[in-house]
């Protein structure tokens, strides 16, 4: 129990734990202080100056986010002077902001807009002194993300997020003064700058300056094209988080309503990525066994996280042989949709529009990769993030909260508990272990592998299977990835299987997930709440091991086992290519 100090805030006395900042002290006591750039333990530079408060009657104001309380401190957070200064600050930001709220990805979840409304900003500076659209860039060279400088408020949260979450620091301030803009160095596109599209910057951005490439219109047209059959797959993490966009508390399972909404949107068929997750486990399990028994490259790395795959291809290409050749569940699902499923529906592959709903931004780029298709079509045509789906549902006027839940039809929607937990860090490993342990040792009947669960960035465990010690590790987030791979270079320990996720916490904290405002992120453990949904689904499932999924077994017996090696490989496996960042020479 920490010591308490007495602080007067707006003429009332409070007992605040020592070491708290004024901002934290106020928020814990219901006093609202405007804030924009503060992101706990990620970006604490105090540069937006909106949280300026009067301390001990000093003339110059202090930033509440970084001023620590002291016994006897006298704080004033609201008076005419402070109100005028905050308003002027916001007017300044508004006067060069490109307001496109009607189409902006943050139309109903924008921290900047909240502040503008709260302070009744009139945006008069534009009229009076000219509207200088922040010129610089619309950096949209990548297939996944866009940097729109005309909406940037230069808070710097994205710069810190890329540095502290992912450890690659792709973004930084360029130029100076009022010509400053955020982006990769030397006007390079994101693709060239070594970005892995994990989307941590998007999650940190308070406005619509950073966003995923918007594919809503493409989807809308496809769904209204009578010649096309739209087949949608939904990732495990969507059902655990979609509800947040409609007012449900964090950690609510809205699976039924999710499918109902998709149905109302007009899609022709719905399948579940979870099904493909089970398929992936079976394929990957076999691959792992093969490597273990036939002296293959070990440790084997999982390959379902495209952010992680990008990271490896860019920064540790020498370890490409360690990557599992299995495609991710999204891509396996896409491949099955366009071949097996299209056949069953008696539709030409070319007339199938395969859509996936993903918590991930990197998936948009993954879908466009070379290997992910054949005969002139891609296996996944459109990737929509959780946020895009939510926007679609709202724009169509669907009353999400009150629709009747639905179940998807067809057996490509059957899944086991192991598939549900794919969205959490450690989930893929646990799912794999459940299958692999049985493959290696038919006596092993383990279901839960609790050692791989939890928030630490690197988790390790050893399981004794078929007379061998199998060393596994689970790594998530760019910083931990680097640490682990560097350690791998020098360690004597033999690892066999490692799960890597590009995002801390796994897909439930992916770049495409509903954005939680900075303030709320400090109060709610979002990762924990969302992962609880998935673990609960798993514990309530009857079938909890991927290889026991009857639909998967049927797929193999009906279709996959009849394919030749080459075709099977083409459907479910892929290749990787070494890439370098900053490879183009720019004068």
């Amino acid at each position, binding site marked *: 129990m920490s010591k308490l100090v007495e602080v007067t805030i707006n003429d009332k006395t409070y007992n605040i734990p020592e070491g708290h900042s004024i901002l934290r002290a106020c928020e814990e006591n219901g006093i609202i202080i405007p804030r924009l750039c503060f992101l706990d333990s990620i970006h604490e*530079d*105090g*540069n*937006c*100056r*909106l949280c*300026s408060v009067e301390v001990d009657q000093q*003339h*110059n*104001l202090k*930033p509440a986010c*970084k001023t620590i309380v002291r016994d006897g401190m006298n704080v004033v957070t609201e008076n005419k*002077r402070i109100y*005028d*200064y905050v308003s*002027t*600050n916001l007017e*300044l*930001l508004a*006067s*060069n902001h490109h307001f496109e709220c009607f189409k902006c990805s943050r139309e109903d979840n924008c921290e900047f807009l909240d502040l503008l409304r709260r302070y009744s900003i009139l945006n008069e*500076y534009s009229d*009076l*002194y*000219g509207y200088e659209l922040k010129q610089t860039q619309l950096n949209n060279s990548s297939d996944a993300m866009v940097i729109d400088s005309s909406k940037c*408020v*230069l808070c*710097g949260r994205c710069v810190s997020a890329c540095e502290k979450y992912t450890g690659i620091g792709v973004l*930084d*301030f360029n*130029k*100076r*003064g*009022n*010509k*400053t803009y955020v982006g990769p160095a030397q006007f390079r596109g994101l693709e060239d700058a070594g970005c892995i599209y994990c989307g941590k910057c998007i999650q940190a951005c308070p406005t619509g300056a950073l966003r995923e490439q918007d594919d809503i219109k493409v989807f809308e047209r496809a769904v209204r094209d009578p010649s096309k059959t739209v087949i949608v797959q939904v990732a495990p993490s969507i059902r655990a988080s979609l509800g947040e966009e409609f007012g449900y508390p964090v950690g609510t399972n809205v699976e039924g309503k999710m499918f109902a909404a998709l149905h109302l949107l007009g899609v022709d068929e719905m399948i579940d990525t979870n099904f493909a997750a089970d398929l992936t486990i079976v394929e990957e399990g076999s691959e792992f066994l093969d490597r273990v028994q036939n002296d293959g490259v070990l440790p084997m790395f999982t390959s379902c996280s495209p952010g992680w795959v990008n990271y490896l291809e860019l920064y540790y290409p020498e370890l490409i042989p360690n990557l599992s050749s299995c495609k991710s569940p999204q891509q396996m699902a896409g491949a099955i949709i366009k071949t097996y499923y299209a056949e069953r529906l008696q539709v030409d592959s070319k007339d199938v529009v395969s859509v996936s709903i993903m918590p991930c931004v990197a998936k948009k780029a993954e879908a466009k990769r070379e290997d992910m298709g054949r005969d002139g079509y891609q296996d996944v045509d459109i990737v929509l993030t959780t946020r895009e789906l939510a926007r679609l549902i709202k724009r169509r006027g669907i009353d999400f909260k009150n629709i009747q839940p639905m179940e998807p039809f067809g057996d490509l929607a059957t899944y086991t508990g192991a598939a549900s937990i794919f969205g959490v860090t450690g989930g893929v490993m646990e799912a794999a272990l459940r299958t692999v342990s049985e493959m290696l040792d038919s006596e092993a009947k383990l279901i839960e592998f609790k050692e791989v669960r939890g928030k630490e960035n690197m988790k390790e465990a050893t399981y004794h299977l078929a007379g061998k010690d199998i060393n596994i590790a689970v790594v998530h987030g760019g910083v931990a990835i680097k640490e682990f791979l560097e350690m791998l270079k020098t360690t004597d320990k033999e690892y066999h299987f490692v799960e890597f996720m590009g995002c801390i916490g796994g897909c439930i904290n992916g770049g495409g997930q509903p954005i939680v405002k900075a303030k709320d992120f400090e109060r709610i453990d979002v990762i924990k709440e969302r992962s609880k949904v998935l673990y609960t689904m798993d514990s309530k499932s009857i079938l909890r091991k991927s290889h026991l999924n009857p639909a998967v077994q049927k797929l193999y017996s009906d279709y996959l086992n009849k394919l030749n090696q080459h075709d099977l490989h083409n459907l479910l496996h892929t290749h990787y290519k070494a890439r370098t960042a900053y490879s183009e020479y720019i004068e």
Partner: protein
Amino acid sequence: MFERMQLLVCGGESCEQKQIGAIKDALLVELKKHDCENEIAITQSSCFGLCEKGAIVGVFPDEVYYQCKTKSEIVMIVEKHIKNNQIVEELRIKDPILHKRLKEHSNFHVFNKQNRIVLRNCGIINPLSIEEYIARDGYFALAKALKEYTSEEVIEIVKKSKLRGRGGGGFPTGLKWEYAKNSQSDIKYVVCNADEGDPGAFMDRAVLEGDPHSILEAMAICGYAIGAQQGYIYVRAEYPVAVERLERAIEDAKNLNLLGDNLFGTDFSFEIELRLGSGAFVCGEETALIASIEGFRGMPKLKPPFPAESGLWGKPTNVNNVETFANIPVIILKGADWFNTIGTEKSSGTKVFALGGKIKNTGLIEIPMGTTLRDVVFDIGGGIPNRKKIKAIQTGGPSGGCIIEKDLDTPIDFDTLTDLGSMMGSGGMIVMDEDNCMVDVARFYLEFTVEESCGKCTPCREGTKRMYDILNKISEGKGTLEDIDHLEVLASMVAETSLCGLGQTAPNPVLSTLKHFRDEYLAHVNDHYCPAGVCRELTNYIIDDTCVGCTKCATNCPVGAIIGWPKAIHKLDMSLCIRCGACKQACPVGSIKTVKGGEAHV
């Protein structure tokens, strides 16, 4: 070197008056007899042209001139005045006109040498010669500090001297050193801020180019005091001569083991390296400077933590300005008490100012704190040229404000200038006369600040730009009263909520010109007229009917805006006019007048 008194003796080698020559020799003999040689400096000036008065001897700092015709008179002067500080009234030159003439002659010989502490060696020693620096007691202060004082005692001396930071902040240097000393760490750093960015300031440049060793010695003393072994001089790349001289000085010092390991046989070691700036004014702010040395983008950080606690690479760091450091060796050698005899109670010592603008004697001056602004401008500075009237003095560069005529008798020190709404700053002093437009002055400084803002915090990045937009609008004649209100709100907001000193002080020129010259702003806004005739769109000329048709104006116009036949009244086309004023100057009868906007004669 720091003699108690200075004697200025007339003539010199070209003196042909043998009589006078004999008197001067007697002076030297007397001084030797009284053992005053080392504490009295004798300078031979040029001939005053007053030979009938005998030998003229000026005694400084008392500023008394004597006329001596006999040897016994010399004896009296030495015994009474020089030895016992008693003025010999009967020999004194009292005629005010003569006194003034003598003073004018002696001004530069004497006055500049009098209080030169920071610039003590500039113009006297060869900056490339470490031997000459040593000859002027160089590195003796370091030896004294290492051998005679503990590090705590050194800090006590600096504290006692009440030396305040000369970079603009005016923070007590001794206290700053003490904070760094009290931070626990085995690695600490000393940083010299030589990124003199204020436009018009070149005081630090003179020291770096003319006396680089003084900085090295001071940094070593600082390192000893706070417990650091490594020093960095962050010098702007726009000073290539300074960089060269510093590099050479460091090398020479190393060769004589006055930098490096075990200085003077003690266990104190100190190394100095240079780091060059890359053209960012904001890197003169200490946390931005530290970020720049670390290789990051030069952007300031929140304070606390202060560099004394966590600075370069997270270690306790002491950052001081060049001029602050230049004072240190002298303070160690002569003592804190001596230092306190110069200057005022709260601001001891001297300050170097770079005089510029509408003033006769532009250049660097070093004056004791407490000298009045009037003395600086009219006495030392020589006054305003062309018989113009003084309007304002701008001190502190883009962070400072204007001081008006009625406040000219204010003695200069850190606090008095801040009370007047300006600040000492680094020492730039720009004098303005009636031909300066104060709106334009504010706009000029803001242009600089807008360009140099780092962009990290919203108030400075956006606020200064909008203030600049408003000032442009006003000087183009499109301003409204509402604009002035916005200007004031913006100025207060930027000043009170910016993250670093650049933003916090950027509105000062605006706020102080608004306070003292609001009528000029109103003239621009309400009357569309620039009283000083500077703002182009608001300055119009007409040729009235006193014109004699001499065609001189038309001949001198560089853009051909004047037409007229000889002996007929000429006409001005304002749409071509660039307001250079050449026609006004050329007109022999003063027919060309500046009028309020809108009345242009076409």
